[in-house]
């Protein structure tokens, strides 16, 4: 354990007392940085799994009924003779969504970066409750493994979609899946618990552990975004947990919450799910917005344009995020008057996103743009998130949603938001904070190649889905060729599948760069990007306890190109004003 020892001058330093055992240091560690890195490996693994499932789905859609390559590896219950069965396809649809939303994107954004960055960026030595943090990670691991193991049980993995609408999800007779569905529920209850424990920790840490001078208005936007995200998770997750447990009881002990025979209400599940689900959507994008704000600012060498508006937009999104859930249910049979009110609140929630987009452009305006890999991914994020955001307006309009609801237009939209948005920001974050995490730089040339190919193949894979949706192609279909209005869109499927394969292959470039750089990358200086926030003012990687000299904060979070600082174009948050004394901040 590191302890804090006061120097004679009164300025304390952190000293390593004695070496911890390997297990205490890397497996059951309570150091927020180790836990963040553990989450990184865990979530990248699930990103890979989710991607593989998507590749199988794409094969079936492009070549329905044709044996898959290596199809012989699958058991008879999934793909006899390598030809995918419809029930296996539905399990793939369900588990691709589940892994990507809950175990890849959410863990990457929150599990990894809330853990890693919050204490470093607010100048704290660790989280408020380090052991609770460890528990949070070790709850997420079995959650993921249970979901993964469900493929191996009788009946296969859950088959009611990632939204698991009742009664399909509540009655094994209807879905043919019993054990798999229950494992899905248990997995998400555990993940919810992990998320609630994590959120409690993040919120408490931000409220009460900021370094002296780290005022609310001096917190980097990443911390703001993660803080508000934690509040969303804290308040939304338990509602999902409650719903999941009711669904589990419906399946196992004969309750009737969502089963209509004795008065249960299928729509109640949808209300509970989306009451959680819409805040969840923002859990999956707010941290990404935070990273991008910060990386764009550092890459443009300019303060974030409209910092207060950015914070306000995050808060507004979080608040409004709790009153828009019904827009997922316009066509569900819910009272149409409710539909109207949800439509209006949904239109309003688009405004803060618009503010953020324009402020990002404002940040780039008259900047001095450095196109390193994280910056490219951050710019890519803005370009693609705009498409996802704008396509959202089509479905926010309830009457037009009549046509596109449950079509590929929705599939295109969520992938523009979650891949083009969240995942691009995650790549930006990985390239940006990798040197801090591992003490080495990722290769910038290969990073740029990775960016370019991802950008191209992402658009080729997902943009055409808009056109399929406009033709009226329904989602979650095992074979779309049986409908007259979509029969001639098989060529589009082929284009999408080939692009998706290529997109998956670009992941190999990333993986090689990631693991290669971890061991062979160029040694990273403490502050490779000349950035202002506190984590860059300590060695890469920071030691246990984070600080050689505990930081005191004097400046705002994104002070680049300050006119009073002439020797360099950035001003660290903890630089003492008597050393450099700019006016104002």
């Amino acid at each position, binding site marked *: 354990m590191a302890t804090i020892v006061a120097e004679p001058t009164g300025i304390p330093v952190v000293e390593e007392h004695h070496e911890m055992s390997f297990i205490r240091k890397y497996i059951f560690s309570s150091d927020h940085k180790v836990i963040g890195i553990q989450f990184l490996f865990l979530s990248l693994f699930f990103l890979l799994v989710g991607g593989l499932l998507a590749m199988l789905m794409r094969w079936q859609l492009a070549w329905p009924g044709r044996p898959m390559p290596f199809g012989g590896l699958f058991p008879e219950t999934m793909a006899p003779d390598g030809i995918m069965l419809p029930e296996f396809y539905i399990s793939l649809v369900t588990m691709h969504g589940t892994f990507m939303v809950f175990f890849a994107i959410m863990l990457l954004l929150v599990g990894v970066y809330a853990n890693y960055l919050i204490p470093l960026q607010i100048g704290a030595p660790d989280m408020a409750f380090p052991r609770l943090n460890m528990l949070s990670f070790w709850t997420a691991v079995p959650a993921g493994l249970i979901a993964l193991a469900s493929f191996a049980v009788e009946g296969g993995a859950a088959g009611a979609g990632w939204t698991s609408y009742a009664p*399909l999800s509540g009655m094994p007779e209807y879905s043919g899946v019993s054990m798999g569905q229950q494992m899905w529920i248990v997995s998400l209850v555990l993940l919810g618990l992990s998320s609630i424990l994590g959120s409690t920790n993040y919120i408490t840490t931000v409220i009460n552990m900021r370094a002296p001078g780290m005022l609310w208005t001096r917190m980097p936007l990443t911390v703001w975004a993660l803080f508000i995200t934690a509040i969303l998770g804290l308040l939304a997750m338990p509602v999902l947990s409650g719903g999941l447990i009711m669904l589990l009881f419906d399946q196992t002990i004969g309750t009737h919450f969502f089963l209509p025979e004795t008065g249960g209400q299928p729509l109640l599940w949808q209300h509970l799910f989306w009451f959680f689900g819409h805040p969840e959507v923002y859990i999956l994008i707010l941290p990404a917005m935070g990273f991008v704000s910060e990386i764009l600012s550092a890459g443009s060498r300019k303060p974030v344009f409209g910092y207060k508006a950015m914070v306000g937009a995050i808060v507004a999104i979080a608040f409004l995020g709790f009153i828009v859930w019904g827009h997922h249910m316009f066509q569900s049979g819910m009272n149409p008057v409710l539909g109207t009110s949800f439509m*209006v609140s949904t239109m309003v929630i*688009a405004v803060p996103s618009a503010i953020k987009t324009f402020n990002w452009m404002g940040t780039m305006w008259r900047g*001095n743009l450095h196109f390193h890999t994280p910056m490219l991914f951050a710019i890519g994020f803005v370009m693609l998130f705009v498409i996802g955001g*704008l396509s959202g307006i089509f479905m926010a309009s309830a*009457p*037009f949603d009549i046509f596109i609801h449950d079509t590929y237009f929705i599939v295109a939209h969520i992938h523009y938001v979650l891949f083009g948005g969240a995942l691009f920001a995650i790549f930006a974050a990985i390239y940006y904070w990798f040197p801090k995490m591992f003490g080495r730089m990722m290769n910038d040339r290969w990073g740029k190649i990775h960016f370019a190919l991802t950008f191209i193949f992402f658009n080729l894979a997902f943009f055409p889905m808009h056109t399929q949706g406009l033709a009226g192609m329904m989602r979650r279909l095992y074979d779309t060729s049986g409908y007259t209005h979509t029969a001639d869109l098989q060529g589009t499927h082929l284009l999408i599948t080939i692009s998706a394969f290529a997109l998956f292959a670009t992941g190999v470039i990333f993986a090689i760069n990631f693991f290669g750089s971890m061991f062979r990358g160029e040694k990273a200086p403490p502050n490779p990007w000349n950035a202002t926030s506190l984590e860059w003012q300590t060695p890469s990687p920071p030691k246990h306890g984070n600080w050689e000299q505990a930081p005191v904060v004097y400046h705002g979070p994104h002070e680049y190109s300050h006119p009073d600082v002439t020797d360099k174009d950035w001003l660290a948050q903890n630089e003492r004003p008597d050393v450099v004394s700019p006016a104002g901040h």
Partner: protein
Amino acid sequence: MNWSLPENIATYGGKIDALFWVITIVTGIAFVLVEVGIIWFCVKYRRREGHRAYYTHGSKSLEVLWTAVPALALVALGVYSASVWAYIKGRDAAPSESLHIAVSAKQFEWNVTYAGADEVLGTSDDFSTRNQLHFPVNRPILVWLEAEDVLHSFFIPQLRVKQDAVPGMTIPVWFEATKTGDYQIGCAELCGLGHYRMRARVTIHEPAAYEAWVGEQIAARAASGEPTVVAASADLGNDVGDGTGQHAGHDHSAGGM
């Protein structure tokens, strides 16, 4: 690749398609503005040696502008959409002269019950078909939609109609076709392993041809001695009943298919 919506054959389809084009134009402007802006900034403000970024924390007037303009545009879109929404899906939206048809979805088929010659559901001349929906052109149709097991969704792309079918609820859906022809109902809500093949044929007749078809069906069922009546039960229509009193329950397990 397909760049537009499918053929529209619904009276209200024009309203939906117009909304599509309005949203496309509004979002298209925003799209071009942002994407062109970003690319332009990337070129214009790329890193140059000795150059220093312009130090600013923002501009109140600009921020107010780009908050107000999207807000106004979005609220206007919302208000515009709300009127179309009420026209199509409002609780009392269906025209009173509508022809009532009951549709019940189950894994993985669509069962349709027709009111017969008297045009009242729940009477002795009702009859059912499976995976076929027949109705006349140029007359509002009011479908009473139910599900027997799980959620399904009643979707006819060319009629711009989509409505989830929920077990335990009877949901009214109305539409009016402007053109005869053959189309398909698709299931748009994941309902199990046969979801992808849960479709039905839609035949839109000239009014006279529809009358003739109804007559044929009744005659054929009378001749074969199959029951055309489906027992009425009182448990339906209570949750979304609108007081028209024209619909009544029916039991598909007894339906003559």
